[in-house]
């Protein structure tokens, strides 16, 4: 069971969170101006790297806040978590 560091509540068990996929995928400003391909990329396409990955979680049975966190997909090690609209901490080594 992962231990996830909520930026507001501190480290809590994975059971209190829901996963929100890759971080920093913004809703396009003008969807109507996008081609089908560009729109499909927004909806369906996500990175799946081996190693460090910035992803979103929501502390849904706790403070109900969404946030971003670095996670290493190889060994589940976590890097820093950070609030939305704040500067992304650099990729952990």
């Amino acid at each position, binding site marked *: 069971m992962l231990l996830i560091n909520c930026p507001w509540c501190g480290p809590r068990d994975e059971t209190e969170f829901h996963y929100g996929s890759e971080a920093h995928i913004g809703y396009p400003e003008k969807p109507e101006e996008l081609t089908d391909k560009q729109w499909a990329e927004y909806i369906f396409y996500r990175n799946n790297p081996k190693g460090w990955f910035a992803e979103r979680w929501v502390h849904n049975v706790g403070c*109900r806040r969404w946030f971003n966190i670095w996670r290493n997909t190889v060994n589940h090690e976590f890097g820093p978590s950070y609030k939305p609209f704040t500067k992304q901490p650099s990729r952990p080594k």
Partner: protein
Amino acid sequence: MDNLTQARRSPLNNSTLGNKKSIYLAEKPFATTLEIRVKPNSVTAKKIEKVLKIKFPNQVGQTFKSKDFTVLTLGSDWWMVVGANKNHESKIRAAIGNGFASIVDSSAQRTFVEVSGKYAQEVLEHGWENNLDPKVFKSGMCAQGVLSRSPVIIYHGPVGVYHLYVRASFAQHLWNFLSDAAVEYLKK
């Protein structure tokens, strides 16, 4: 009791179980509860604090206690005020005017179960995944999480006395769980 109060039914019929020495479970009466969401430290937040004569703690898990209210910090902009009465909602609305805040009377949303006795912590630890070590989860702190897969807020009142606020639809399940978990400690 007026007719209105008589017409109320609590999810657990004010059940109790156990003994106060080892482990004691009790459903407590309804308390008017307001869930307040407002930008912390904003002018509107200050106005609400003034009306209720409370302070909104800044850190999730911290609480504030006054003569009339217990204020639990559930989120960065989310507080649960227990012990208000029916008029407080309108008083707050009048005070904040056009200020942006959400005031929700959620008195019936949760059922209040008190867990106390020497083995209260141990009984809760059978289903609560977060740290209940009193050196970490001190008296006067609160936490939201799941207890036996039910959404619960735990407020550590006086040392060793835990107030559980469980979503009302889960109350019977939680009671069944706690009663079963208490069995081993009843005669200790």
